[in-house]
């Protein structure tokens, strides 16, 4: 959604409407706001690193590889939470991306205008639902549904796979993955739709004129053309799934251990922080370890988001060049 503004801004610079004190003032003001964000981000990183220092010094890089998290013995390691974060996010992509792609293709290529506009609004409305509401819905609707019907069915049919074995807890990795899948759909489908809409019309026409069917024209002309934009959309969804806290904390079961089974409780980087943030006494090793988890989460989320934005911008930028 930020893209039109960026393009407009560039155009405004290419065709200045004349200079006045108002423009200069506005430029200085908005420039300061932009710099303030960078300063803020830098300060957050510095404060996190300072508070994480006791843990950084004690555990070093081994922090990322240790699976022991014991506040009683002051042993802290991030591996169970990294595992929980990766598995729930992967599950979210596995379930959420195909649905998002379907929505985006339907909206941009197939739907008549009378359906397209309301459908777009409804999907974007999903993004406006606060995550604590997803969490509540997860506890009272999704948990009984998945633990009562879906999980036993999966265990019955695919029980030979280790991921579907073991006791079925109501709050578990699987439930968290399903909730995340629903939560990333608006992001992924909106950005994918933008990417598909940006594909030049002549791509579709060329494919159709060669005798391609509707599906073939979408596959050859549109999807493969918008590849990097779609990939960027998926990465943005991954970023959202990685950092999501409230809804996940409410349905994941909060166990600080690595379990192969998807039906066992687990913990993500963000949920362990939400659970234990109140515990730390300033300067203690425990608070240091909790803050270090925050540092890890922030760095990974930052990398994913920067990478995803670059992919999307490069794609849309290329399209803009083509249009002008």
């Amino acid at each position, binding site marked *: 959604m930020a893209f039109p503004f960026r393009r407009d801004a560039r155009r405004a610079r290419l065709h200045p*409407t004349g200079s006045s004190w108002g423009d200069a003032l506005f430029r200085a003001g908005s420039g300061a706001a932009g710099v303030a964000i960078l300063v803020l981000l830098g300060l957050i990183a510095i404060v996190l690193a300072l508070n994480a220092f006791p843990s950084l010094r004690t555990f070093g890089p081994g922090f990322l590889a240790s699976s022991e998290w014991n*506040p*009683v*013995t002051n042993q802290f390691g991030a591996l169970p939470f990294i595992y929980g974060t990766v598995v729930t996010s992967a599950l979210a992509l596995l379930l959420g991306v195909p649905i998002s792609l379907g929505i985006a293709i339907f909206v941009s290529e197939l739907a008549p205008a009378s359906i397209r506009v309301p459908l777009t609004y409804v999907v974007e409305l999903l993004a406006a639902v606060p995550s604590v509401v997803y969490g509540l819905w997860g506890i009272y609707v999704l948990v009984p549904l998945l633990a009562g019907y879906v999980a036993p069915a999966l265990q019955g049919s695919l029980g030979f796979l280790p991921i579907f074995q073991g006791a079925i*807890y109501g709050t578990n990795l699987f439930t968290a993955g399903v909730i995340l899948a629903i939560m990333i759909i608006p992001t992924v489908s909106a950005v994918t739709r933008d990417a598909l809409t940006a594909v030049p019309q002549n791509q579709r026409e060329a494919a159709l004129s060669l005798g391609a069917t509707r599906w073939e024209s979408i596959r050859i002309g549109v999807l493969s053309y918008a590849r990097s934009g779609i990939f960027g959309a998926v990465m943005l969804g991954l970023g959202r799934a990685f950092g999501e806290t409230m809804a996940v904390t409410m349905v994941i079961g909060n166990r600080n*251990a690595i379990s192969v089974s998807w039906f066992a*409780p687990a913990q993500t980087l963000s949920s362990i922080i939400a*659970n234990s943030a*109140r515990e730390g006494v300033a300067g203690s090793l425990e608070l240091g370890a909790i803050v270090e988890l925050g540092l890890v989460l922030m760095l990974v989320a930052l990398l994913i988001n920067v990478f995803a934005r670059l992919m999307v911008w490069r794609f849309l930028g290329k399209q803009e060049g083509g249009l002008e």
Partner: protein
Amino acid sequence: MKENEGTIQPQKGRRGLWIILSVVAIVVIILVAGALTNWFGLAGTPPIQLNGAGSSFAFPLMSAWSTQYKALTGVQINYQGTGSGAGISAIIAKNLDFGGTDATLNTTQHTQNPSLLTIPESLGAVTVAYNVPGVPAHINLTGPIIANIYLGLITKWDDGSIAAINSGVAFPSTSIFVEYRSDSSGTTFVFTDYLSKVSSQFATQVGKGKLVAWPVGSGAPQNQGVANAVKGQTGAIGYVELAYVVQNSMSYAKVKNAARNYILPDLNSTAAAAASAAGSLPAGNGDWSQVSITNATGATSYPISTFTYILVYQELNVYPSGMTQAKAQALVAFLWWAVHTGQTTAASLTYAPLPAAVVTQDEATIHTITFNGEPLPT
């Protein structure tokens, strides 16, 4: 996207400027209005406010006290149930007038803050709640059995050790789903303190604390969260404060005490546990880290009982943000009220009233509180 092409117009830019200007204007108006209200507000005497936070275990009681005390004296008590860990941190940081906690200061915290007084303020019981269809509302359990369940050594409800002490009860072969607190919790501290006393394996493998590394089970936040988790899962077991199991009409166990009797948690059995420990409590400014009334002696003591405490500074003029004589006086008066009149409210909310010996000790502690070195009359 395409509809937006070439829509940039000077008028649009000016509209944006107007939006910014009106937002700034609104902010200015709000600030001015706030300043004016404050200015006029100073004309009258502002009511005294006392800020406390901590133990969520004690929160229902504190809320009731706050309403009663405001009606009685006009003094406003603000209490937030942020958890015992947060309460201790905040009173040490001098961000509160008093802290609430179920876990006492540890020795390090006490040594670094020798002027913090520990005042037992009410009593509570941690119950072992379960959801097993077809089983009576109060089955018998022992400390070692509960420890083994939480260690993952007993995994089925029809385990021989459970059946042996519940003759006549037909247990289903359901898996046991263990539920615990995921947030930093005084309730967890009391529960793990008890299990560490009755099971040496639990003591070495898990230990006691407000947050511990549970070998099995799943976690939910707050007492109500664990209560919901137990209610929502057939075969679940969890530890919850007494008021919550009563409110949620859940099944909870009789637990075998040190005198080998199976005791149901209630006001009398909790008070009995406190009475057995009352004679041996440290002074108000002493080290309370070893105080525990779990596994108390006495034929009718419920073994998973606890004091909940208020933490206050002995000398009150220590706040960087300032403390007035009137506010210090109000704090002392509230503490005095809480350990006397307040105890009758406690009973109606399933907190057992403090035994007389503990009230006497609290009186002595409250009398040591000073402002600028001068004692404050109660």
